[in-house]
């Protein structure tokens, strides 16, 4: 689409939003500046339409706080109350039924459902008191289970810490979007991601891919990692999750302690890393995470 076509389209949108026909004449602005100005106007006029479109523009920072102030007042939004932002991602495009179901769970005027695009929805939910981590996870699980059992659609949900002021919502939105992205890379089979518990993933995500590959090839070869079977991967994860405890891991995995030792020995023979040693365990844990990162980015 060239500049003129873009301008034409934006003017059309502006006319649709305002009912007024606009024309551009004797503008000193460059084409790009004109387009940006038009975009800004479209956003501003559109947000007048509904609370939901206001929230959307505010979250994705198309609207500054000073521009938002009027709408906050107009929509009777209480600025100082604990809120959670849940960012939902569906496997396919979600239906109108999904929106109806979620709206029914948020009857309070201080809550909001924001349709970001055909696969993403942000839910802004207020709490009377600051929710505990347990309450947050329970709420997230309820959304997922309800959507699956009522609308037969699978979602993932990401969240950040509770926000105390309305102005913090755009940052929370940015963090939850990132949490979804990083979570999908490092914890792809999970359905709930918390920005604050992404742990190493948040750090590793920023390392350039070529450096990751160099690290892996200096430690555990990528081909070797690719060849590990699910049973070994599960066992290693369980061993790390249980603080390298043989007794606890064998109990949780319902396997004989000697079987666990045998499998860890086998892994050590294969890779040269004995995960019962703390330093080797760190290397293997890191390598597995980096390998997932490489796979996802490729």
């Amino acid at each position, binding site marked *: 689409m060239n500049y003129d076509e873009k301008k034409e389209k934006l003017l059309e949108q502006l006319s649709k939003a305002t009912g007024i026909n606009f024309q551009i004449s004797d503008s000193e602005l460059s084409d790009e500046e004109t387009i940006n100005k038009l975009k800004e106007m479209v956003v501003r006029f559109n947000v007048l339409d509904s609370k939901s479109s206001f929230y959307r523009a505010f979250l994705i920072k198309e609207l500054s706080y000073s521009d938002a102030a009027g709408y906050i007042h107009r929509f009777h939004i209480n600025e100082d109350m604990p809120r959670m932002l849940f960012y939902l991602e569906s496997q396919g495009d979600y239906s109108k039924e999904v929106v109806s*179901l979620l709206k029914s769970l948020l*009857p309070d005027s201080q809550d909001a459902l924001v349709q970001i695009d055909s696969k993403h929805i942000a839910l802004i939910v207020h709490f009377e008191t600051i929710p505990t981590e347990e309450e947050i996870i329970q709420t997230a699980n309820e959304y997922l289970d*309800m959507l*699956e*059992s009522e609308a037969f659609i699978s979602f993932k949900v990401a969240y950040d810490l509770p926000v105390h002021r309305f102005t913090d919502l755009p940052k929370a939105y940015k963090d939850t979007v990132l949490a979804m992205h990083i979570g999908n890379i490092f914890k*792809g089979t999970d359905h709930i991601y918390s920005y604050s518990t992404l742990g190493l993933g948040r750090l590793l995500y920023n390392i350039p891919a070529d450096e990751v590959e160099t690290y892996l090839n200096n430690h555990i070869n990528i081909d070797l990692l690719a060849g590990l079977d699910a049973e070994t991967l*599960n066992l290693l994860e369980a061993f790390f999750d249980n603080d390298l405890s043989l007794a606890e891991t064998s109990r949780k995995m*319902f396997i*004989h302690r000697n079987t666990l030792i045998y499998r860890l020995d086998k892994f050590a023979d294969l890779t040269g890393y004995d995960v019962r040693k703390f330093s080797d365990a760190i290397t293997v844990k890191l390598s597995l995470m980096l390998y997932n990162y490489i796979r996802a980015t490729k």
Partner: protein
Amino acid sequence: MADIQLKNINKKYPNGFHAVKDFNLDIKDQEFIIFVGPSGCGKSTTLRMIAGLEEISSGELLIDGKLMNDVEPKDRDIAMVFQNYALYPHMTVYDNMAFGLKLRKVPKDEIDKKVREAARILDLEKLLDRKPKALSGGQRQRVAMGRAIVRNPKVFLMDEPLSNLDAKLRVQMRTEISKLHDSLGATMIYVTHDQTEAMTLGTRIVVMKDGVVQQIDTPANLYQKPCNLFVAGFIGSPQMNFLDGTLNADCTAIQVNGASLQIPPAKTKALMEAGYASKQVILGIRPEDIHDSQIFVDTQASSVIEATISVYELLGAEVYLYFDYAGTQVTARVDPRTTARGGDTVKFALDMEKAHFFDKDTEVTIAN
């Protein structure tokens, strides 16, 4: 009517994780099937593939003979009940149950009929006008079930539906679900990590581990004839005790920590036929098959071990005695009238008729 067939079902995620491997199962109409296994074993993934919430990587899913792989979840005639049941806070119990049908534009009188029938089955008739806040945990769970029942599905899929309830309520709801299965006559598939739930509810149980089906059998058979060490350890609470031992040349006895335990003829025959003479094996013995009473010790003198009790636990109807033997912690479930206490050195008789033998390397059962 709903027969379900899973043929060579696999689930492989884009990151290469193979969550379910070659899953095969025929579920008969009105059967109550349980998927059980530890966290991450693939049981929920399998259920979600049946529901259509997860794509099947390979294999075939048939409901009543019709291939369902590419059928939309909403068109599979199923209903799901999960652990986290979100009720609409501003709606009454009636509206909570009716809401899904309203969205699907079901006629009003039909909705009313279905909701009242579900309320009758679930004993919620007197609560229809209440809001969720005024309900107990068990009542809320019943409303969640009501939302599934009003769909009148061929198949009910339940994923750990009782996990959020306290222990007492869980036992109560377990009975309710069992009754519900009888009254609805629908096919039910129920996922749990709790082997007690599995044993009490299921007509058949599928035990899974690392995405692989370990054994599909009735609760009694799983308990008495586990096919491998994993199933033997997973089914039963407290879990089966496992001791390393060496068989003698004619498999009539096993040496464990210096004690020679005599093996009954039927098991001897099985061990000999499988070629385990003089080999190392794992002996499995359930806690209730270890006795401390004098009568047992006297009559089963050929299978007695001696150990010092480390912990004595009185549970009311029974006592658990814990002791170390051959480097393994062993649990015995004995009569509460036992005089044994922590620190005592006691003789225990093992009921070798009930003993299990497993291959030390493959962990497969040799003799039950």
